[in-house]
């Protein structure tokens, strides 16, 4: 099997590490070799957060090379664009539409414009045309907790059938890793993301 490279990008506090652990655990359930890279400490305080998930027999390095991502899962559009150099024209970018404004922008003396979602998408297109945008905030709200946007996007990712992991295995990993009281709302979020992408196709 060729190795599979998945990059998660977002903002500290969005639950990237949990999403990465769910995906990595599911890979192990499938008997696959996997490496998951994480960033802890200072970078988590509302800063940019990236995690790589690499699956395959020969995978050793926890991080991937530019231009080799199979999928970029963007929990936030600006952070997705920040990591777009890991994409090639074959890469699928699956991205949340909810922009989180960096706090610093409000303090700038000179005018800095936050790029619109449309601008961000146009810039991502320089690298790949395979882009799916999901309103994960809306779906997470529907599921019952806005903090489940990460799980909505894992559901959406499962529906794309790009992952070498079965959907049921992902659900199993979610049940294993989220606190017991939150299993139900997370599975609802997963299904809403899944159904959304399925209904698009």
């Amino acid at each position: 099997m060729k190795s599979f490279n998945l990059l998660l990008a977002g903002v500290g506090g969005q639950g990237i590490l949990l999403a990465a652990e769910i995906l990595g655990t599911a890979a192990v359930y499938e008997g696959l070799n996997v490496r998951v890279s994480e960033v802890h400490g200072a970078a988590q305080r509302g800063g940019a957060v990236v995690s790589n998930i690499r699956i395959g027999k020969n995978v050793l390095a926890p991080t991937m090379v530019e231009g080799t991502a199979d999928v970029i899962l963007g929990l936030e559009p600006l952070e997705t664009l920040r990591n777009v150099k890991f994409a090639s024209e074959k890469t699928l970018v699956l991205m949340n539409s909810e922009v989180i404004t960096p706090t610093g922008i409000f303090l700038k003396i000179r005018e800095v414009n936050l790029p619109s979602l449309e601008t961000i998408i146009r810039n991502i297109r320089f690298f790949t045309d395979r882009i799916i945008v999901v309103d994960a905030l809306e779906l997470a709200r529907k599921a019952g907790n806005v903090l489940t946007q990460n799980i909505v996007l894992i559901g959406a990712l499962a529906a794309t059938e790009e992952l070498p992991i079965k959907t049921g295995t992902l659900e199993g990993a979610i049940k294993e890793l989220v606190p017991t009281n939150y299993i139900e709302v997370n599975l609802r979020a997963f299904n809403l993301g899944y159904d959304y992408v399925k209904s698009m196709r």
Partner: protein
Amino acid sequence: MPPKPETLLQDKAGKQVLLLGNEAIARGVIEAGIGIVTTYPGTPASEIGDTVSKLASKAGIYMEYSVNEKVAVEVAAGAAVCGARALTAMKHVGLNVAADAVMTLAYIGVRGGYVIVTADDPECYSSQNEQDNRLYALLSNLPCLEPSNPQECKDMVRYAVQISEKLELPVLLRTVTRVSHTRGPVIYGSIDKPRLKGMLKRDVQRFVAVPRHARPMHDRLLEKVERAKEISESSPYNRVVRKADNGKIGIISSSAAYNYAVEATELLGLNVSLLKLGMSHPLPEGIITQFLEEHEKIIVVEELEPYLEVQVKALAKDCVPKVEIYGKMRGQYFLRSSEFSTRIVVEGLAKITGLKLPIDFISIEQKYEEVSQTLIRRSPVLCAGCPHRASFYVLKRATNGKALFPTDIGCYALGIAPPLSVGDLLICMGASIGTAGGVSKATEVDTIAIVGDSTFFHAGIPALVNAVYNNHKFTLVVVDNLTTAMTGNQPHPGTGKTGMGTHGKRVVIEEVARGCGVRFVKVINPFEVEEAIRAVKEALRTSGVSVVVFRAPCALLLVREKRRLGERLEPCWITEACNNCMACIKLLGCPALVIKNGNVTINEALCTGCGLCAHVCPYKAIRLPE
């Protein structure tokens, strides 16, 4: 999410689990029968102690968060000298603090296996420097193991204990961020019963390092290094993992760099031999010499210092002078700073071998340059509701921004960012207090040292005693958020909680300050802004050293506590009186205050209702939660 304790304690050899490198080290503790674990938290090492802390009482292990790394080593060393199996975990700079104990413990040695984990941080992800602690192995003569994945993290704990007991010498286990913070599948081994109890039989020539004993101790240590070389020579972790058919190029590597090296050769289609060194001190000179003899060119791939390269070159000079050796010393095919990546190794190897790059990085970078024009930096910030924001606002108001602020290691270092912009000098743990003494001697400006609660206990107290004794003139502000926040909310003496989850005795900062001889000591909640400003002004007018403790709990603790109860913190809200003057945003830079469609709004998901913005609003347009 840490794995559930039951999972890590399962006595199921052969079971495969996804573990973080640091969690794998914790599992290694369980398997290797280690009876005592000590630590001071620090990224990227924190999860080792935290994971053991959650398992300790169930597993029959004694675990403590020590006050600093030196004490952590001393506590563990005391037990290991009595025959207990021990492990101490720390970040790379922690070993600087512990070095005094480690250097002479190497002379004395241990009886039970003792492993010292040092987690290095190439790229300074969460650190003030990126020193290469393999050099401590050379300096101290201690054996050093370097895992490159979670499985090795676990397995090498037991291996380190075996070596340690064979040589009666502590063993360094050196990871890097990309090993400690990488998850991968780990296959469990069997579990040994934890060994905590032993006895110290008096033997002053062995255990008491006075000069007369220390000289023979040094010779005994050097004999142990010779025996360690034999272990290194036959170590399963020092091996040729791939042999090229043409004998032209050989790569020598270790740690995270090894992973990049393997993948880089595959991307380049480079036919090379690979020598992986999992035990990097002392080096297996026989294995390396043979590897040098079998190849025309040797490429050393390692992060940070040319630790392997220097030694390989020294060996080559004596044994195989004709072999060409490439690395970072001459030609600079690789850099001595920053962490590596597969791409960096690909580029270095391509330069050395003349091979074409497999990926057109230049055109990727050009394209990225174009699209990233629109990107805005997203730096880490103090959380919404963080009491440090209130503290810094108070300090700015109290001093009109005219004081100098030596600051320290912790979340509050984020206070240097605008708009708070508090913090002028930062070296290492506890240095705010020592440097404040020097700054106040060398300038005529008000000097305010800023230190966190955990950092105060770690290295602040001797500096405070020094300041009182030598009659320095500055104010020390202890920003006490009742936790070790930056590394994941570990307890410390001021919390009274212990690593075993029990309640110890609480050591109270203001009592410590008074005990150190400080006359002016005040404790204030920084959210009581005006009162806090008065206290700082008063402290600055005092002669000698004054101490103000700003005490309010870390917002993350409050949020988590509420979430655990299934509740939430009620947010502040903005009334009609708001005229969008933006004072709240410009003064505080709180991530919960955002501009939407030109209007100031409050992000309810982030706001903790701390009310600092309500205090600063000139129009009283922000209301506290009911």
